[in-house]
Protein backbone atom coordinates (compact mmCIF):
# COMPACT_ATOMS: atom_id res chain seq x y z
CA UNK A 1 0.00 0.00 0.00
CA UNK A 2 3.00 2.27 0.46
CA UNK A 3 5.25 3.89 -2.10
CA UNK A 4 4.24 4.36 -5.69
CA UNK A 5 2.06 1.27 -5.92
CA UNK A 6 -1.36 1.79 -7.30
CA UNK A 7 -3.83 1.93 -4.42
CA UNK A 8 -7.02 0.05 -5.09
CA UNK A 9 -9.70 2.49 -4.15
CA UNK A 10 -13.08 0.89 -3.51
CA UNK A 11 -15.56 1.83 -6.19
CA UNK A 12 -17.71 3.52 -3.56
CA UNK A 13 -21.43 3.43 -3.05
CA UNK A 14 -23.89 4.76 -5.59
CA UNK A 15 -25.46 8.03 -4.43
CA UNK A 16 -29.11 7.93 -3.46
CA UNK A 17 -31.81 9.28 -5.72
CA UNK A 18 -32.24 13.00 -4.85
CA UNK A 19 -35.89 12.56 -3.78
CA UNK A 20 -34.96 9.69 -1.45
CA UNK A 21 -31.88 11.55 -0.24
CA UNK A 22 -33.91 14.54 0.95
CA UNK A 23 -36.24 12.26 2.92
CA UNK A 24 -33.35 10.28 4.43
CA UNK A 25 -31.47 13.41 5.49
CA UNK A 26 -34.58 15.02 6.96
CA UNK A 27 -35.48 11.83 8.83
CA UNK A 28 -31.99 11.32 10.26
CA UNK A 29 -31.64 14.92 11.38
CA UNK A 30 -35.22 15.15 12.70
CA UNK A 31 -35.04 11.89 14.67
CA UNK A 32 -31.52 12.73 15.77
CA UNK A 33 -32.55 16.11 17.13
CA UNK A 34 -35.42 14.53 19.07
CA UNK A 35 -33.00 11.88 20.37
CA UNK A 36 -30.65 14.66 21.48
CA UNK A 37 -33.41 16.27 23.51
CA UNK A 38 -34.41 12.94 25.10
CA UNK A 39 -30.80 11.92 25.83
CA UNK A 40 -30.09 15.31 27.32
CA UNK A 41 -33.00 14.84 29.70
CA UNK A 42 -31.78 11.40 30.75
CA UNK A 43 -28.17 12.49 31.16
CA UNK A 44 -29.03 15.60 33.14
CA UNK A 45 -31.55 13.83 35.42
CA UNK A 46 -29.07 12.79 38.18
CA UNK A 47 -27.98 16.39 38.72
CA UNK A 48 -31.45 17.92 38.45
CA UNK A 49 -31.92 20.85 40.74
CA UNK A 50 -28.20 21.15 41.52
CA UNK A 51 -25.67 23.57 40.09
CA UNK A 52 -28.13 25.38 37.90
CA UNK A 53 -29.07 22.26 35.91
CA UNK A 54 -32.76 22.24 35.27
CA UNK A 55 -34.68 19.33 33.87
CA UNK A 56 -38.17 20.22 32.77
CA UNK A 57 -40.92 17.90 31.72
CA UNK A 58 -40.50 15.80 28.58
CA UNK A 59 -42.68 18.21 26.66
CA UNK A 60 -40.78 21.29 27.82
CA UNK A 61 -38.57 21.59 24.71
CA UNK A 62 -41.62 21.28 22.46
CA UNK A 63 -43.50 23.88 24.46
CA UNK A 64 -40.52 26.18 24.32
CA UNK A 65 -40.26 25.67 20.56
CA UNK A 66 -43.92 26.53 20.10
CA UNK A 67 -43.55 29.55 22.32
CA UNK A 68 -40.51 30.76 20.36
CA UNK A 69 -42.31 30.29 17.06
CA UNK A 70 -45.07 32.57 18.34
CA UNK A 71 -42.80 35.37 19.48
CA UNK A 72 -42.27 38.59 17.64
CA UNK A 73 -38.87 38.90 15.96
CA UNK A 74 -37.09 41.97 17.25
CA UNK A 75 -34.21 43.61 15.47
CA UNK A 76 -31.24 45.84 16.24
CA UNK A 77 -29.98 49.12 14.87
CA UNK A 78 -28.45 48.67 11.40
CA UNK A 79 -27.83 44.92 11.42
CA UNK A 80 -26.62 43.02 8.38
CA UNK A 81 -30.06 41.56 7.90
CA UNK A 82 -29.32 39.06 5.15
CA UNK A 83 -26.51 37.24 6.94
CA UNK A 84 -28.36 37.38 10.24
CA UNK A 85 -31.45 35.68 8.85
CA UNK A 86 -29.55 33.26 6.62
CA UNK A 87 -27.01 32.11 9.24
CA UNK A 88 -29.24 29.41 10.85
CA UNK A 89 -30.24 28.15 7.40
CA UNK A 90 -26.61 28.01 6.30
CA UNK A 91 -25.59 26.23 9.50
CA UNK A 92 -28.31 23.61 8.97
CA UNK A 93 -27.33 23.35 5.30
CA UNK A 94 -23.74 22.60 6.28
CA UNK A 95 -24.94 19.93 8.73
CA UNK A 96 -26.91 18.34 5.88
CA UNK A 97 -23.96 18.53 3.47
CA UNK A 98 -21.68 16.94 6.06
CA UNK A 99 -24.19 14.16 6.80
CA UNK A 100 -24.48 13.39 3.09
CA UNK A 101 -20.95 11.93 2.96
CA UNK A 102 -21.40 9.72 6.06
CA UNK A 103 -22.48 6.13 5.27
CA UNK A 104 -25.61 5.25 7.25
CA UNK A 105 -25.55 1.51 6.68
CA UNK A 106 -23.78 -1.09 4.56
CA UNK A 107 -24.04 0.29 1.04
CA UNK A 108 -26.34 3.13 2.04
CA UNK A 109 -25.04 6.69 1.93
CA UNK A 110 -26.56 9.79 0.45
CA UNK A 111 -23.34 10.47 -1.44
CA UNK A 112 -20.27 8.57 -0.23
CA UNK A 113 -17.94 10.59 -2.45
CA UNK A 114 -14.28 9.69 -2.76
CA UNK A 115 -13.29 12.98 -1.13
CA UNK A 116 -15.60 12.38 1.85
CA UNK A 117 -13.43 13.74 4.64
CA UNK A 118 -12.47 16.79 2.55
CA UNK A 119 -16.14 17.61 1.99
CA UNK A 120 -16.83 17.02 5.68
CA UNK A 121 -13.89 19.25 6.60
CA UNK A 122 -15.06 21.97 4.22
CA UNK A 123 -18.53 21.95 5.83
CA UNK A 124 -16.88 22.15 9.23
CA UNK A 125 -14.70 25.09 8.16
CA UNK A 126 -17.64 26.91 6.60
CA UNK A 127 -19.51 26.43 9.87
CA UNK A 128 -16.85 28.66 11.46
CA UNK A 129 -17.70 31.38 8.94
CA UNK A 130 -21.41 30.97 9.56
CA UNK A 131 -21.12 31.06 13.36
CA UNK A 132 -18.89 34.13 13.10
CA UNK A 133 -21.32 35.90 10.76
CA UNK A 134 -24.24 35.00 13.03
CA UNK A 135 -22.54 36.82 15.90
CA UNK A 136 -21.23 39.65 13.73
CA UNK A 137 -24.39 40.57 11.85
CA UNK A 138 -26.69 41.90 14.64
CA UNK A 139 -24.31 44.87 15.18
CA UNK A 140 -24.27 44.24 18.90
CA UNK A 141 -21.20 44.25 21.18
CA UNK A 142 -21.66 40.99 23.14
CA UNK A 143 -22.59 39.07 20.03
CA UNK A 144 -19.51 40.45 18.28
CA UNK A 145 -17.19 39.59 21.17
CA UNK A 146 -18.52 36.03 21.17
CA UNK A 147 -17.99 35.80 17.40
CA UNK A 148 -14.32 36.80 17.60
CA UNK A 149 -13.74 34.64 20.64
CA UNK A 150 -15.24 31.71 18.77
CA UNK A 151 -12.89 32.22 15.81
CA UNK A 152 -9.86 31.98 18.12
CA UNK A 153 -11.23 28.72 19.53
CA UNK A 154 -12.27 27.45 16.10
CA UNK A 155 -8.87 27.93 14.47
CA UNK A 156 -7.43 25.87 17.33
CA UNK A 157 -9.81 22.89 17.03
CA UNK A 158 -9.97 22.93 13.23
CA UNK A 159 -6.43 21.54 12.87
CA UNK A 160 -7.18 18.71 15.30
CA UNK A 161 -10.14 17.68 13.22
CA UNK A 162 -8.13 17.48 10.02
CA UNK A 163 -5.32 15.45 11.58
CA UNK A 164 -7.57 12.86 13.23
CA UNK A 165 -9.57 12.44 10.00
CA UNK A 166 -6.40 12.04 7.93
CA UNK A 167 -5.04 9.54 10.45
CA UNK A 168 -8.24 7.50 10.03
CA UNK A 169 -7.94 7.76 6.24
CA UNK A 170 -4.38 6.35 6.11
CA UNK A 171 -5.28 2.69 6.89
CA UNK A 172 -8.29 3.00 4.57
CA UNK A 173 -6.13 4.23 1.69
CA UNK A 174 -8.98 6.52 0.70
CA UNK A 175 -10.59 9.81 1.69
CA UNK A 176 -14.06 8.26 1.50
CA UNK A 177 -15.76 7.74 4.85
CA UNK A 178 -17.29 4.53 3.49
CA UNK A 179 -13.78 3.21 2.87
CA UNK A 180 -12.77 4.28 6.39
CA UNK A 181 -15.66 2.20 7.78
CA UNK A 182 -14.62 -0.76 5.60
CA UNK A 183 -11.04 -0.49 6.85
CA UNK A 184 -12.25 -1.10 10.42
CA UNK A 185 -13.57 -4.59 9.70
CA UNK A 186 -10.84 -6.21 11.81
CA UNK A 187 -10.28 -3.58 14.46
CA UNK A 188 -12.10 -0.34 15.15
CA UNK A 189 -10.18 2.91 14.92
CA UNK A 190 -11.04 3.68 18.53
CA UNK A 191 -8.65 0.85 19.50
CA UNK A 192 -6.20 1.22 16.63
CA UNK A 193 -5.88 4.99 17.03
CA UNK A 194 -6.94 5.61 20.64
CA UNK A 195 -6.31 9.36 20.48
CA UNK A 196 -8.74 9.90 17.60
CA UNK A 197 -12.11 9.71 19.31
CA UNK A 198 -11.27 11.91 22.34
CA UNK A 199 -9.92 14.60 20.01
CA UNK A 200 -13.01 14.22 17.84
CA UNK A 201 -15.20 14.89 20.89
CA UNK A 202 -13.30 18.16 21.43
CA UNK A 203 -13.90 19.11 17.81
CA UNK A 204 -17.59 18.22 18.09
CA UNK A 205 -18.03 20.40 21.16
CA UNK A 206 -16.25 23.18 19.30
CA UNK A 207 -18.38 23.09 16.16
CA UNK A 208 -21.60 22.94 18.16
CA UNK A 209 -20.21 25.46 20.71
CA UNK A 210 -21.33 23.30 23.61
CA UNK A 211 -19.82 21.79 26.75
CA UNK A 212 -16.29 23.00 27.54
CA UNK A 213 -16.26 25.04 24.33
CA UNK A 214 -19.60 26.80 24.83
CA UNK A 215 -18.05 30.15 23.98
CA UNK A 216 -20.71 31.48 21.61
CA UNK A 217 -24.25 31.64 23.01
CA UNK A 218 -23.03 31.52 26.58
CA UNK A 219 -24.25 33.09 29.78
CA UNK A 220 -20.93 34.79 30.56
CA UNK A 221 -21.63 37.17 27.66
CA UNK A 222 -25.31 37.63 28.48
CA UNK A 223 -26.25 35.24 25.68
CA UNK A 224 -23.32 36.09 23.36
CA UNK A 225 -23.93 35.37 19.68
CA UNK A 226 -27.60 34.71 20.31
CA UNK A 227 -28.23 37.69 22.56
CA UNK A 228 -30.17 39.59 19.90
CA UNK A 229 -31.94 36.55 18.43
CA UNK A 230 -35.63 36.27 19.09
CA UNK A 231 -38.58 34.14 18.11
CA UNK A 232 -38.16 31.99 15.04
CA UNK A 233 -34.53 33.01 14.59
CA UNK A 234 -33.65 31.61 18.00
CA UNK A 235 -35.64 28.45 17.32
CA UNK A 236 -33.95 27.94 13.94
CA UNK A 237 -30.49 28.42 15.42
CA UNK A 238 -31.16 25.93 18.23
CA UNK A 239 -32.57 23.39 15.77
CA UNK A 240 -29.63 23.73 13.40
CA UNK A 241 -27.25 23.27 16.32
CA UNK A 242 -28.97 20.05 17.45
CA UNK A 243 -28.72 18.77 13.86
CA UNK A 244 -24.99 19.59 13.75
CA UNK A 245 -24.46 17.68 17.01
CA UNK A 246 -26.14 14.62 15.48
CA UNK A 247 -23.98 14.87 12.36
CA UNK A 248 -20.76 14.99 14.36
CA UNK A 249 -21.90 12.05 16.50
CA UNK A 250 -22.69 10.08 13.34
CA UNK A 251 -19.32 10.92 11.80
CA UNK A 252 -17.57 9.96 15.05
CA UNK A 253 -19.41 6.63 15.04
CA UNK A 254 -18.49 5.98 11.40
CA UNK A 255 -14.84 7.03 11.59
CA UNK A 256 -13.87 5.65 15.00
CA UNK A 257 -16.46 3.04 16.07
CA UNK A 258 -16.69 0.98 12.91
CA UNK A 259 -19.89 2.61 11.61
CA UNK A 260 -22.49 0.08 10.54
CA UNK A 261 -20.34 -2.96 11.34
CA UNK A 262 -21.45 -5.37 14.05
CA UNK A 263 -22.98 -8.82 14.57
CA UNK A 264 -26.66 -9.87 14.46
CA UNK A 265 -28.31 -6.48 14.11
CA UNK A 266 -28.66 -4.86 10.68
CA UNK A 267 -26.09 -2.18 9.77
CA UNK A 268 -28.42 0.75 10.15
CA UNK A 269 -29.30 -0.30 13.70
CA UNK A 270 -25.61 -0.56 14.66
CA UNK A 271 -24.98 2.87 13.17
CA UNK A 272 -27.91 4.29 15.16
CA UNK A 273 -26.72 2.66 18.40
CA UNK A 274 -23.15 3.90 17.94
CA UNK A 275 -24.30 7.38 16.99
CA UNK A 276 -26.48 7.47 20.11
CA UNK A 277 -23.50 6.35 22.20
CA UNK A 278 -21.32 9.21 20.92
CA UNK A 279 -24.28 11.54 21.34
CA UNK A 280 -24.61 10.54 25.01
CA UNK A 281 -20.95 11.42 25.63
CA UNK A 282 -21.30 14.74 23.79
CA UNK A 283 -24.47 15.68 25.65
CA UNK A 284 -23.01 14.56 29.01
CA UNK A 285 -20.02 16.80 28.33
CA UNK A 286 -22.36 19.64 27.52
CA UNK A 287 -24.22 19.16 30.79
CA UNK A 288 -21.37 18.34 33.18
CA UNK A 289 -18.19 20.00 31.86
CA UNK A 290 -17.53 23.62 32.76
CA UNK A 291 -16.88 26.15 30.03
CA UNK A 292 -13.19 26.86 29.46
CA UNK A 293 -12.08 30.39 28.87
CA UNK A 294 -11.18 30.84 25.21
CA UNK A 295 -7.62 31.83 26.09
CA UNK A 296 -7.02 28.70 28.15
CA UNK A 297 -8.47 26.47 25.47
CA UNK A 298 -6.30 28.03 22.76
CA UNK A 299 -3.20 27.39 24.87
CA UNK A 300 -4.29 23.81 25.62
CA UNK A 301 -5.13 23.17 21.97
CA UNK A 302 -1.81 24.35 20.54
CA UNK A 303 0.47 23.11 23.33
CA UNK A 304 -1.12 19.76 24.20
CA UNK A 305 -3.91 18.68 21.86
CA UNK A 306 -2.14 19.51 18.59
CA UNK A 307 0.95 17.44 19.51
CA UNK A 308 -1.45 14.64 20.49
CA UNK A 309 -3.06 14.96 17.05
CA UNK A 310 0.40 14.66 15.44
CA UNK A 311 0.98 11.55 17.56
CA UNK A 312 -2.36 10.19 16.36
CA UNK A 313 -1.25 10.78 12.78
CA UNK A 314 2.02 8.98 13.52
CA UNK A 315 0.15 6.05 15.08
CA UNK A 316 -2.13 5.92 12.05
CA UNK A 317 0.82 6.00 9.64
CA UNK A 318 3.05 3.51 11.47
CA UNK A 319 0.08 1.22 12.11
CA UNK A 320 -0.64 0.83 8.41
CA UNK A 321 2.95 0.17 7.29
Amino acid at each position, binding site marked *: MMGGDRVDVPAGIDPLDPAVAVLVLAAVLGLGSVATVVLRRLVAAPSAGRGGTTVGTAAAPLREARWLADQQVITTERPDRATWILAPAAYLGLAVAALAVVPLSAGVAVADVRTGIVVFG*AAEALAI*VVIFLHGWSPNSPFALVSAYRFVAVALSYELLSMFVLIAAAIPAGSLSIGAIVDSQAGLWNVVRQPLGLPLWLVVSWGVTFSGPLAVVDSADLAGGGGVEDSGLQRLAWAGARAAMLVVFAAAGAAVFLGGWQGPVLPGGAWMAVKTAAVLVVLVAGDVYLARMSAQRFVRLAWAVLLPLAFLDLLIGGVGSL
Partner: protein
Amino acid sequence: MIDIAFVVFSVAAVISGYLVFRVDSMIRASFLLLASFLNVGAVLVLLLAEYLGTALLFMMTVEMVVMALFMVMFMMNPAGLNPMSMVHQPRVAAAAGLVAAAGIWAVALLADFPDAPVVDADQAVRDLGFELLGESMLVFESAGVTLLATMVCAVVLSAARGRFGDGYEGSVAPPLEPGGDHRPDDDLVDDDAGGHHHDHGGR
Protein backbone atom coordinates in the same frame (compact mmCIF):
# COMPACT_ATOMS: atom_id res chain seq x y z
CA MET B 1 -27.80 19.82 -16.41
CA ILE B 2 -24.06 20.09 -15.84
CA ASP B 3 -23.92 22.95 -18.37
CA ILE B 4 -26.61 24.84 -16.44
CA ALA B 5 -24.76 24.27 -13.16
CA PHE B 6 -21.53 25.41 -14.79
CA VAL B 7 -23.13 28.66 -15.97
CA VAL B 8 -24.81 29.28 -12.59
CA PHE B 9 -21.61 28.75 -10.60
CA SER B 10 -19.50 30.77 -13.05
CA VAL B 11 -21.90 33.72 -13.07
CA ALA B 12 -22.18 33.59 -9.27
CA ALA B 13 -18.37 33.56 -9.00
CA VAL B 14 -18.06 36.64 -11.24
CA ILE B 15 -20.89 38.54 -9.53
CA SER B 16 -19.64 37.90 -5.99
CA GLY B 17 -16.13 38.79 -7.16
CA TYR B 18 -17.47 42.09 -8.50
CA LEU B 19 -19.41 42.78 -5.29
CA VAL B 20 -16.18 42.50 -3.29
CA PHE B 21 -15.34 46.00 -4.53
CA ARG B 22 -18.86 47.40 -4.22
CA VAL B 23 -19.60 46.70 -0.55
CA ASP B 24 -18.46 49.04 2.18
CA SER B 25 -17.20 46.68 4.86
CA MET B 26 -14.12 44.54 5.30
CA ILE B 27 -16.10 41.53 6.54
CA ARG B 28 -18.59 41.67 3.67
CA ALA B 29 -15.78 42.07 1.13
CA SER B 30 -13.82 39.14 2.57
CA PHE B 31 -16.71 36.73 2.66
CA LEU B 32 -17.96 37.75 -0.79
CA LEU B 33 -14.46 36.90 -2.01
CA LEU B 34 -14.86 33.56 -0.24
CA ALA B 35 -18.23 33.08 -1.99
CA SER B 36 -16.48 33.69 -5.30
CA PHE B 37 -13.83 31.06 -4.49
CA LEU B 38 -16.49 28.56 -3.40
CA ASN B 39 -18.20 28.92 -6.76
CA VAL B 40 -14.87 28.37 -8.52
CA GLY B 41 -14.43 25.25 -6.38
CA ALA B 42 -17.85 24.03 -7.52
CA VAL B 43 -16.82 24.62 -11.15
CA LEU B 44 -13.65 22.58 -10.57
CA VAL B 45 -15.79 19.72 -9.21
CA LEU B 46 -17.93 19.94 -12.35
CA LEU B 47 -14.73 19.69 -14.40
CA LEU B 48 -14.12 16.36 -12.60
CA ALA B 49 -11.23 17.77 -10.58
CA GLU B 50 -13.05 16.37 -7.55
CA TYR B 51 -10.18 16.51 -5.09
CA LEU B 52 -8.86 19.91 -6.20
CA GLY B 53 -12.37 21.39 -6.09
CA THR B 54 -13.27 20.18 -2.62
CA ALA B 55 -9.78 20.97 -1.30
CA LEU B 56 -10.24 24.50 -2.68
CA LEU B 57 -13.51 24.88 -0.74
CA PHE B 58 -11.77 23.76 2.43
CA MET B 59 -8.51 25.68 2.06
CA MET B 60 -10.12 28.93 0.94
CA THR B 61 -12.58 28.88 3.84
CA VAL B 62 -9.87 28.47 6.44
CA GLU B 63 -7.68 30.99 4.66
CA MET B 64 -10.44 33.61 4.55
CA VAL B 65 -11.19 33.10 8.24
CA VAL B 66 -7.53 33.63 9.10
CA MET B 67 -6.87 36.44 6.64
CA ALA B 68 -10.08 38.42 6.92
CA LEU B 69 -10.64 38.10 10.63
CA PHE B 70 -7.03 38.74 11.63
CA MET B 71 -6.99 41.73 9.29
CA VAL B 72 -10.17 43.11 10.79
CA MET B 73 -9.06 42.39 14.36
CA PHE B 74 -6.02 44.62 13.87
CA MET B 75 -8.11 47.44 12.40
CA MET B 76 -9.63 50.41 14.15
CA ASN B 77 -13.10 49.29 13.19
CA PRO B 78 -13.26 45.70 14.37
CA ALA B 79 -17.00 45.46 13.98
CA GLY B 80 -16.75 46.04 10.25
CA LEU B 81 -20.34 47.22 10.11
CA ASN B 82 -19.49 50.91 9.83
CA PRO B 83 -19.18 51.93 6.18
CA MET B 84 -15.68 52.32 4.81
CA SER B 85 -14.30 52.50 1.31
CA MET B 86 -12.94 49.20 0.09
CA VAL B 87 -10.83 50.62 -2.77
CA HIS B 88 -7.58 52.46 -2.92
CA GLN B 89 -5.40 53.60 -5.82
CA PRO B 90 -8.39 53.03 -8.13
CA ARG B 91 -6.64 54.15 -11.32
CA VAL B 92 -3.58 51.93 -10.87
CA ALA B 93 -5.87 49.09 -9.84
CA ALA B 94 -8.10 49.56 -12.89
CA ALA B 95 -5.09 49.59 -15.21
CA ALA B 96 -3.61 46.49 -13.56
CA GLY B 97 -7.01 44.78 -13.72
CA LEU B 98 -7.40 45.52 -17.43
CA VAL B 99 -3.91 44.22 -18.21
CA ALA B 100 -4.51 41.04 -16.20
CA ALA B 101 -7.92 40.50 -17.79
CA ALA B 102 -6.44 41.04 -21.27
CA GLY B 103 -3.78 38.45 -20.47
CA ILE B 104 -6.32 35.91 -19.28
CA TRP B 105 -8.59 36.50 -22.27
CA ALA B 106 -5.62 36.22 -24.60
CA VAL B 107 -4.73 32.85 -23.07
CA ALA B 108 -8.36 31.71 -23.17
CA LEU B 109 -8.86 32.67 -26.81
CA LEU B 110 -5.45 32.13 -28.36
CA ALA B 111 -3.83 29.26 -26.48
CA ASP B 112 -3.98 25.80 -27.95
CA PHE B 113 -5.39 23.77 -25.05
CA PRO B 114 -4.74 20.03 -25.02
CA ASP B 115 -7.89 17.99 -25.44
CA ALA B 116 -7.26 15.46 -22.67
CA PRO B 117 -10.38 14.64 -20.66
CA VAL B 118 -9.76 13.17 -17.21
CA VAL B 119 -10.51 9.46 -17.54
CA ASP B 120 -9.19 8.34 -14.16
CA ALA B 121 -9.75 10.90 -11.43
CA ASP B 122 -7.64 8.88 -8.99
CA GLN B 123 -4.73 8.95 -11.42
CA ALA B 124 -5.02 12.76 -11.55
CA VAL B 125 -4.84 13.01 -7.75
CA ARG B 126 -1.93 10.57 -7.69
CA ASP B 127 -0.06 12.60 -10.31
CA LEU B 128 -0.68 15.72 -8.26
CA GLY B 129 0.73 14.03 -5.15
CA PHE B 130 3.89 12.90 -6.96
CA GLU B 131 4.30 16.39 -8.44
CA LEU B 132 3.98 18.09 -5.03
CA LEU B 133 6.33 15.69 -3.26
CA GLY B 134 8.57 14.92 -6.23
CA GLU B 135 9.73 17.36 -8.90
CA SER B 136 8.28 20.46 -7.23
CA MET B 137 8.99 19.47 -3.66
CA LEU B 138 11.68 22.11 -3.07
CA VAL B 139 9.42 24.94 -4.27
CA PHE B 140 6.39 23.86 -2.28
CA GLU B 141 8.26 22.97 0.88
CA SER B 142 10.17 26.30 0.80
CA ALA B 143 6.89 28.17 0.43
CA GLY B 144 5.32 26.07 3.17
CA VAL B 145 8.12 26.61 5.67
CA THR B 146 8.22 30.34 4.86
CA LEU B 147 4.48 30.65 5.47
CA LEU B 148 4.77 28.69 8.70
CA ALA B 149 7.59 30.96 9.89
CA THR B 150 5.47 34.00 9.01
CA MET B 151 2.56 32.64 11.03
CA VAL B 152 4.75 31.90 14.04
CA CYS B 153 6.32 35.38 13.85
CA ALA B 154 2.90 37.05 13.57
CA VAL B 155 1.69 35.19 16.64
CA VAL B 156 4.87 36.02 18.59
CA LEU B 157 4.64 39.71 17.63
CA SER B 158 0.99 39.95 18.63
CA ALA B 159 1.28 37.94 21.86
CA ALA B 160 1.00 40.07 24.97
CA ARG B 161 3.38 37.84 26.86
CA GLY B 162 5.87 35.15 26.09
CA ARG B 163 8.14 32.79 27.94
CA PHE B 164 10.33 35.67 29.14
CA GLY B 165 7.37 37.38 30.75
CA ASP B 166 5.28 40.39 29.96
CA GLY B 167 5.53 41.76 26.43
CA TYR B 168 5.81 45.26 27.87
CA GLU B 169 8.79 44.32 30.08
CA GLY B 170 11.42 47.06 29.88
CA SER B 171 9.48 49.19 27.40
CA VAL B 172 9.04 52.89 28.02
CA ALA B 173 5.99 54.95 27.20
CA PRO B 174 6.65 57.60 24.55
CA PRO B 175 6.55 61.23 25.67
CA LEU B 176 3.24 63.01 25.33
CA GLU B 177 4.86 65.94 23.52
CA PRO B 178 7.94 65.94 21.26
CA GLY B 179 11.16 66.18 23.26
CA GLY B 180 9.33 65.73 26.54
CA ASP B 181 10.06 63.31 29.34
CA HIS B 182 9.10 59.69 29.08
CA ARG B 183 6.06 58.84 31.08
CA PRO B 184 6.41 56.61 34.13
CA ASP B 185 6.03 52.95 33.28
CA ASP B 186 2.76 52.58 35.14
CA ASP B 187 1.19 54.52 32.26
CA LEU B 188 1.72 51.47 30.12
CA VAL B 189 -1.10 49.08 29.59
CA ASP B 190 -0.67 46.07 31.83
CA ASP B 191 -2.91 43.35 30.55
CA ASP B 192 -0.91 40.56 32.12
CA ALA B 193 -3.73 38.72 33.81
CA GLY B 194 -1.20 36.34 35.45
CA GLY B 195 -0.21 39.36 37.46
CA HIS B 196 3.32 40.00 38.58
CA HIS B 197 2.76 43.46 39.93
CA HIS B 198 5.78 45.69 40.31
CA ASP B 199 6.07 47.92 43.29
CA HIS B 200 6.20 51.38 41.84
CA GLY B 201 7.54 52.89 45.05
CA GLY B 202 4.81 55.46 45.43
CA ARG B 203 5.56 57.36 42.22
